[in-house]
């Protein structure tokens, strides 16, 4: 088990008081707090090693390049990718999914094709495909859910046809915390010759994730939800697929050669090697250093310990909230089938009322659609309040949270 009280010492922000009350941060599904080790790594980079990466011959650039490449290697090791060539750094999950949509979809999906998208997806795994379908004319089939928000496997399997080319699904729902059986989904998709694009934004920070064992083709996730700075995220892609794909964005860093024949008005371009082929422009080097430190921190804690801690918190929260007369928990009750995310409502109050009420006591939760309006519509909810936990949250915070909610009469 992890020592939560020792971990909390690494997060200075947790010492803050809001409206005179100790901060309780339960909005981790939106973004995580940052340990001082990550902040220190960023400071050290900018104070001592900052330069643009690759191609320059000077010492600072070599140091920055080494750090940047080490960050790719650290992330590859964290999710058990074969090499850093399978790890593309981008701004976050949204950009990573857009990369797959445009690089893979734009060149490979036609009007005869279909893709499957689950109804539990975050907008970032719906909208890029909807935009692209307007260009390419392929059909998007939305996979239904059961009443508690879990994926309906019968519906999922029935939707496959010879036309199915891509399956887009979250590993963990950002609203209900439901954990999808990605290994099973990937197996079914591959049996039908379809690629699998997984939104790992809510899984990689909270569970041990092994891309080889899951056998996914793509996995997108964000650094900022796993202790790292904002503006850095990851796309894992199988080497053989990335190799065949055309770059998403063009510019510096992603090319080996650009040669123009002015008289013939022709330009020939040779792409750079993986992963740089997909990293156009000056990358977020500082962010990558922060991400590397965040990954080291999580590895030190141990992802099995992270999972066990959040399970304990979720179990306790479900128990405490079920004792609050006016609180209704949405989604599945089975803690082992979900991550540390609890959507709920309070009788007579909107989700924003609940969030503002808790804010008064220094408790930060999210309210609204959480960028998953289709899931809310399916669950017949106008919006939801959402509490989400991480490694620095304590059982005492859960008790306090429930006590405050009980005061609503």
């Amino acid at each position: 088990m992890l020592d939560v009280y020792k971990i909390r010492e690494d997060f200075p922000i947790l010492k803050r008081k809001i409206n005179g009350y100790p901060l309780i941060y339960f909005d981790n599904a939106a973004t995580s707090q940052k340990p001082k080790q990550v902040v220190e790594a960023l400071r050290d980079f900018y104070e001592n090693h900052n330069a643009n990466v690759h191609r320059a011959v000077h010492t600072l650039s070599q140091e920055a390049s080494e750090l940047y490449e080490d960050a790719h290697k650290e992330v590859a090791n964290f999710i058990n990718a074969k090499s850093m060539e399978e790890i593309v750094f981008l701004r976050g999950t949204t950009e990573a999914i857009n990369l797959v949509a445009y690089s893979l979809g734009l060149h490979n999906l036609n009007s005869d094709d279909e893709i499957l998208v689950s109804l539990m997806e975050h907008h970032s795994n719906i909208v890029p495909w909807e935009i692209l379908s307007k260009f390419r004319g392929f059909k998007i089939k939305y996979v239904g859910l059961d009443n508690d928000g879990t994926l309906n496997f019968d519906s999922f399997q029935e939707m496959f046809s010879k036309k199915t080319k891509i399956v887009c699904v979250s590993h963990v729902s950002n609203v209900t915390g439901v954990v999808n059986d990605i290994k099973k989904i990937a197996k079914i998709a591959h049996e039908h010759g379809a690629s699998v694009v997984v939104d790992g934004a809510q899984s990689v920070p909270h569970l041990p994730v092994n891309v080889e064992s899951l056998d996914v083709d793509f996995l997108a996730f964000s650094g900022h939800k796993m202790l790292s700075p904002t503006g850095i995220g990851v796309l894992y892609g199988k080497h053989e697929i990335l190799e065949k794909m055309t770059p998403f964005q063009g510019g510096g860093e992603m090319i080996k050669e650009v040669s123009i024949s002015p008289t013939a008005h022709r330009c020939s371009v040779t792409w750079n090697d993986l992963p740089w082929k997909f990293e156009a422009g000056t990358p977020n080097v500082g962010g990558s250093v922060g991400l590397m430190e965040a990954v080291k921190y999580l590895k030190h804690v141990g992802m099995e310990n992270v999972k066990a801690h959040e399970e304990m918190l979720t179990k306790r929260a479900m128990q405490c909230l079920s004792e609050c007369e006016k609180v209704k928990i949405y989604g599945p009750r089975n803690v082992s089938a979900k991550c540390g995310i609890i959507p709920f409502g309070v009788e007579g109050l909107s989700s924003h009322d609940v969030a503002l009420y808790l804010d008064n006591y220094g408790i930060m939760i999210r309210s609204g659609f959480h960028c998953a309006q289709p899931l809310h519509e399916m669950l017949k909810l106008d919006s939801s309040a959402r509490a989400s936990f991480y490694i620095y949250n304590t059982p005492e915070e859960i008790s306090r949270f429930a006590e405050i909610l009980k005061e609503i009469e």
Partner: protein
Amino acid sequence: MANIDDYVARTEGTCGKEKDIIVIFKYEKKDEVIKKILQKAHLKKSIANVIFELTFKEFSFRLYGSGKAIFRSLKDKEELNSILSALLS
């Protein structure tokens, strides 16, 4: 009429089916704001002494002890500004 910029830090549209507007009052002015609003508006209900359900003219809204408020079913920002200006004068 009051200059609302003296009291309002920011406004934010809510996310969700309800298209409401959240008003965040300047922290250092929150006690003054709460006092003024509670004097002007009609208190329908208080929940846990933190949420105040109020009406002012034909508008209903909720004020929170932390110095924030949610206004519902407003036409536009001009209407919001006009209510705030009247409430804070």
